[in-house]
């Protein structure tokens, strides 16, 4: 096991803190990969960050000191003080409360979109890559259609006909975003299809479905997770962009992307208005990425084999 790990130049076993040493010395047989995950400080940090933000989002009604939509014009653009720990925005609303409630909106929307996108993309990608032939051409043709189509037009059309709301944003984004991933996943499946273990599985008479579900899925899960976690950030930013058009969370509902947009005219007068949601987005992306990296190491079955 150690030899495999050190194949990558410069990799050694990561250092462990006393806490982690204690954790890993727990009785019972802990799966090897989970052990690796828990001993990697980066993965743990990622998990911690994501857990903290999710917890903050869920606990927003309890944590937030003020009503995030309470307009108070006499108290606009206050710098951080004891009553308003992060200051107030251009309409006198508490920034901290808006950030906390905004976490719910932003993370919730992004998660739903991400899950929908990945589900569709993985299904289409596997089917297309594995079966090939006419199904592949058809599905990839659809993918091409979607990729070639400027998403903005679709977004405006949806907003115009269905009406501007958070749900319609999710629909618009999910309907368009899966295409790029499908293509990528199909590519992975294509290279996997030729690998020995697939041939071996077929040789012992495993059905197509079983091959697809067990063997291929497990092998692409790692890269897919990496993609998904990195793209959490893109999706959040995409939601923010659509917000500028009027799609998505309607004012005064707090949402990080909308807060970014609101802060733009005040870039020079009150840069913290862009800084807070920007930092929040950055933290979320950081957390998901670290987490994703760790998960990849856990979920990728070709790692640490033999």
């Amino acid at each position, binding site marked *: 096991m150690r030899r495999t790990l050190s194949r990558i130049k410069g990799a050694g076993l990561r250092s462990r803190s006393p806490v982690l040493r204690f954790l890993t010395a727990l009785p019972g047989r802990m799966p090897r990969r989970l052990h690796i995950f828990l001993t990697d400080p980066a993965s743990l940090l990622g998990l911690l960050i994501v857990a903290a933000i999710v917890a903050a989002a869920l606990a927003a009604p309890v944590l937030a000191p003020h009503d995030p939509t309470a307009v108070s014009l006499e108290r606009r653009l206050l710098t951080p003080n004891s009553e308003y720990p992060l200051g107030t925005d251009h309409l006198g609303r508490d920034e901290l409360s808006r950030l906390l409630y905004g976490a719910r909106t932003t993370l919730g929307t992004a998660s739903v979109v991400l899950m929908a996108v990945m589900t569709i993309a993985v299904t289409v990608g596997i089917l297309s890559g594995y079966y090939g032939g006419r199904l592949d051409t058809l599905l990839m043709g659809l993918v*091409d259609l979607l990729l070639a189509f400027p998403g903005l037009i*679709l977004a405006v059309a949806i907003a115009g006909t269905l009406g501007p709301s958070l749900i319609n944003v999710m629909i618009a984004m999910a309907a368009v975003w899966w295409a790029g991933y499908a293509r990528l996943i199909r590519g992975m499946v294509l*290279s996997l299809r030729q690998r020995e273990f697939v041939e071996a599985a077929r040789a012992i008479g495993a059905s197509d479905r079983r091959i697809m579900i067990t063997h291929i899925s497990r092998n692409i899960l790692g890269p897919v997770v990496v993609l998904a976690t990195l793209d959490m950030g893109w999706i959040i930013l995409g939601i923010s962009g659509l917000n500028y058009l009027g799609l998505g969370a309607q004012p005064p509902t707090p949402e990080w992307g909308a807060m970014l947009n609101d802060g*733009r005219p005040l870039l020079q007068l009150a840069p913290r208005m862009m800084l807070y949601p920007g930092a929040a987005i*950055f933290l979320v992306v950081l957390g998901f990425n670290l987490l994703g990296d760790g998960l990849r190491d856990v979920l990728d079955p070709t790692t640490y084999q033999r």
Partner: protein
Amino acid sequence: MRDYAARRLLTLPLLLLGISIVSFTLLNLAPGDPAYIILKQQSPGEAPSREAVLALRQELHLDDPAPLRYGRWLVGAVQGDLGESYRSSTPISKELWRRFPATVMLTGVSLALAVFIGIPLGITSAVWRGSLLDGLSRLLALIGASVPSYVLALLLILLFAVKLHLLPAIGYGSPKHVLLPAIALAAGTSAQLMRLTRATMLEVVRQDYVRTARAKGLPERVVIGRHALRNALLPVVTVLGVNLGHLLGGAVIVETIFGWPGVGKYAVDAIFLRDYPVIQGFVLYMALIFLLANLIMDLAYRWLDPRLHFGKQGS
């Protein structure tokens, strides 16, 4: 491979037709009267009179039935004439063509920046995994991926143009004009590339043929450079292809902020103004770019990994 390429090229017109029909339908679904909106934009702040709106609707044939309008457009489009913009009354193909160099320039420079920064960092990160370089690169990549391009653009202008007076804040023409917009765009792509290169390199280095190469006694440089890299770059190529297409569609917000006369801003303005012919023309242009880029990428796939076979499994 030639057959495959030929087959793909033949389906191209079919796809373009499909895309144009879809966009035409969608446009007619979105509410808003182009005549009203455009008149209002051209005399800002004035509500256009009813006669003016009716007159313009007549001039633009907006009251003709939809299939007729589509047919008219299609006949022109096949001959290369994409019609005239409702807003500027200038030929659309000419306008797209005029803006193309600007978009290509921005795309080219930002992709070059992304590739030159992202891929090498990804490789070194994978090779020296766990080192300080790896950590720093990953941090940089994270920052690049999580800052929206328009925020980065504004910050860059504030720093380099307003405070330091080193580069122009807006404009187009000389190399120094393209630098800030390209950096603003490149950040996201280079982050993507770096992460993906690192991830796939890590995957690939564990493969059997790498062990074989090492066992053969080949120097590490060759192992990485020739064997590992080629396969690691497969998904990278796909990402590049997607980004290339996306960027050639015009980085709208960056173009708007820097006053960069590219294709993207042209299209987005048209969407807001319901300038139907421009949107149709732009959709066609985007479709063409994407389909061609995808074809090239697919061919690159096959070239990079000759183990891939297209068509039914087991062939």
